């Protein structure tokens, strides 16, 4: 047993309202630079829909992820090492910018510099790739809210096999949102595809990063990732991907996407797993067994044997404590309501999802019957095969049984909590019907519905003895160049790297806890609201209280 810790995320899709705040704040923090205009480390897709980049889930075309060969071993779907090297001069499976979208800006200057004319001047869209006028025909969420669903949603790869049953007439379509970030897989195929060995998994917390100094721009990772969450920066010529906001996570703050999530649907916590069993679990024969196989890799932090092994593996005590309190572990294992996204890619993804019950509830409510009643909901889950099969295609490689189980738990919670909220006696037969106790069901409700910030984000800080590596003064931070390279003699991005440009979190903490303002001066009227994250109340923000 080789115990390793993995920073993981769970998203509760029932709560996602599709506001794209996560995408926008992530982009502001990480990818608002030239070369990354089309890069969305976090994006929100409307399902059914094509996703971003278009039809990325069609692995027959894109050849991402792993496949199990007849001899039971895993191989990269796009071919092994030799094939990769022979096709290195022209990557055969690289999505073109058209598969993402051509980024653009507007020619705002004409609005102010236009001479007097009969008609209003127009700010025309200009391509950020070629600089020429362009027609805006696609973007990262062009089919948002089923926009153009007749044309686009019908091509959703996940509808394969059930397309005849799905009627895409607008009024009959079910819909939900799927926010996606990098999965930080246990068995990452992007890292396996990288010829330079620049993509690595951090041993401490499992975050998958691209070493910008080692990346040589061969682009094999872009093809290798089945989720298409590694992007090629076309200005610097290097691959970039979601960093799980490692500078924030290291100091115990959640990722930008989680922090700013309006629906509070994201949970971050540790999961312990047995690194020796990952490959075996990823190689099970039947795709339907992959969900169970991945869960079998995880280790129970309350098991004394696991605790001893973790201690031997050098996992600090506060990390073990965090693993025990981890909401992610609870949702995946204790309540078993979280499911992995596309386990059939065999990468062992570590961002899991609680499938949405709302499509089912909506249908039941629309028929005029009681949509909080367990019997009605259970019957609907059994009857409404389309949402269930579709969800199963996303989360369990097509196996409807686990999806059924999760939806029934959520339905049971709904009707159990209604009794409590209406002051009736709780009906313990409801949780029993889905194999839970009343107390467990209430706890699950607490975690899903009203958990506070520090319950949703249980993030142990990186250790002080490693702190030198976290300081931004060193150039060793693997992606410290995310600040963007400068234009130098060898083209954009060359030259000395600039350090991480996001907020310096230690300074932020200092500002909040120090007696004086950084840089001196009086406190009154000098609070930087941009840097205030809502914790504590810096003096000067509120008028002094009477008793102080």
């Amino acid at each position: 047993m080789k115990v390793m810790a993995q920073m993981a995320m769970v998203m509760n899709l029932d709560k996602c309202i599709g506001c794209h705040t996560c995408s926008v704040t992530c982009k502001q923090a990480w990818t608002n630079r030239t070369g990354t205009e089309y890069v969305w480390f976090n994006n929100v897709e409307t399902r059914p829909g094509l996703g971003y980049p278009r039809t990325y889930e069609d692995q027959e075309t894109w050849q991402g992820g792993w496949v199990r060969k007849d001899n039971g071993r895993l191989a990269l779907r796009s071919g092994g090492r030799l094939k990769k090297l022979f096709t290195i001069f022209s990557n055969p499976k690289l999505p073109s910018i058209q598969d993402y979208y051509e980024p653009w800006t507007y020619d705002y200057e004409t609005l102010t510099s236009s001479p007097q004319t009969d008609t209003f001047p127009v700010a025309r869209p200009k391509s950020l790739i070629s600089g020429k006028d362009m027609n805006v025909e696609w973007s990262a969420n062009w089919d948002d809210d089923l926009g153009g669903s007749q044309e686009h949603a019908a091509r959703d790869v996940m509808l394969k096999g059930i397309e005849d049953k799905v009627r895409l007439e607008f009024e009959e379509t079910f819909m939900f949102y799927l926010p996606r970030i990098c999965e930080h897989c246990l068995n990452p195929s992007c890292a396996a595809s990288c010829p330079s060995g620049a993509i690595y998994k951090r041993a401490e917390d499992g975050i998958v990063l691209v070493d910008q100094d080692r990346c040589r721009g061969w682009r094999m990772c872009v093809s290798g990732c089945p989720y298409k969450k590694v992007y090629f920066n076309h200005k610097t010529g290097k691959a970039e991907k979601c960093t799980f906001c490692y500078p924030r996570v290291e100091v115990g703050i959640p990722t930008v996407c989680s922090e700013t999530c309006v629906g509070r649907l994201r949970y971050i916590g540790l999961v312990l797993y047995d690194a020796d069993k990952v490959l075996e679990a990823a190689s099970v024969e039947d795709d339907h067994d992959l969900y169970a196989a991945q869960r079998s890799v995880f280790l129970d932090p309350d098991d004394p044997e696991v605790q001893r092994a973790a201690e031997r593996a050098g996992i600090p005590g506060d990390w073990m404590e965090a693993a025990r309190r981890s909401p992610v572990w609870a949702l995946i294992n204790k309540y078993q309501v979280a499911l992995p996204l596309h386990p059939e890619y065999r990468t062992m993804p570590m961002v899991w999802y609680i499938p949405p019950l709302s499509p089912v509830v909506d249908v039941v409510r629309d028929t005029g019957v009681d949509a909080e009643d367990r019997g009605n909901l259970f019957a609907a889950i059994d009857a409404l095969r389309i949402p269930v099969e579709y969800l199963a295609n996303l989360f369990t490689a097509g196996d409807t049984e686990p999806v059924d189980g999760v939806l029934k738990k959520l339905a049971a919670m709904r009707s159990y909590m209604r009794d409590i909220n209406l002051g009736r006696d709780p009906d313990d037969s409801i949780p029993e019907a889905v194999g839970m106790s009343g107390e467990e069901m209430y706890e699950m409700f607490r975690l899903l519905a009203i958990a506070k910030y520090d319950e949703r984000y249980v993030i142990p800080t990186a250790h002080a003895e490693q702190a030198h590596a976290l300081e931004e003064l060193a150039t060793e931070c693997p992606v410290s160049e995310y600040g963007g390279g400068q234009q130098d003699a060898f083209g954009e991005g060359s030259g000395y790297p600039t350090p991480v440009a996001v907020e310096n979190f230690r300074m932020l903490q200092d500002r909040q806890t120090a007696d004086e303002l950084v840089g001196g001066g009086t406190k009154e009227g000098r609070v930087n609201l941009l840097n205030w994250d809502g914790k504590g109340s810096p003096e000067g923000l509120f008028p002094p209280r009477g008793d102080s």
Partner: protein
Amino acid sequence: MNVFLWVIVPYLCLAVFVVGHLWRYRYDKFGWTTRSSQLYEDRLLRLGSPLFHFGMLGVVGGHVIGLLVPRSWTEAVGIDDHLYHYVAVIGGLIAGVMALVGMTILIYRRRTVGPVFSATTVMDKVMYAFLGAAIVLGMWNTIAGSIFSLGGEYNYREGVSVWYRSFLAFQPDADLMADAPIGFQLHALVAFGLFALWPFTRLVHVFSAPVGYLTRPYIVYRTRDERPLGNAAPRRGWDRVG
């Protein structure tokens, strides 16, 4: 003049090549990349890039054999001049034509596809000029010199190759090069110019050929480590007092 052209200039270029690469690796690892433009345009690249690169691999292999293997060695294993000449010309032609056609496609692409053209740096253009000139002159030497014997018979294995080995052994014999036909002289000078430019262009990606991929494990784990990743010492994070 001979000493300047065939001793001083080559060694200067070699020095720039070596020191330039060390410097670039030390100070510009972030800029060390292929700077691929495949994202912008795929169709022409798919044809041109493999043609050019595989052609160039052949060209480089041919040069290694032609320049570094002495005539006496091939004779010792029973390869006479005629056979050698035959193989070298055929191989050289195939590789050269591949490289030339590939490069033509790539330059055409670079000029006509808007996004690719606007991503082209001045260094790229200079490098293309030298690389193109070197390939064209090399092809000329093969076709004109070896096939049609324009300007008289010349066996480069007795002249240019010997000079090149003497150059590598730091005992250069400038006269050998001075006697070579003008085509070979120009080819050598352009090539040395290219070597001097090399560390300052995207050509550095040649030295990142990822052969290690064949042997390394698929998944790389890294732990935060005491040693900084770069060779350069981390910059001071504070201001010196006083």
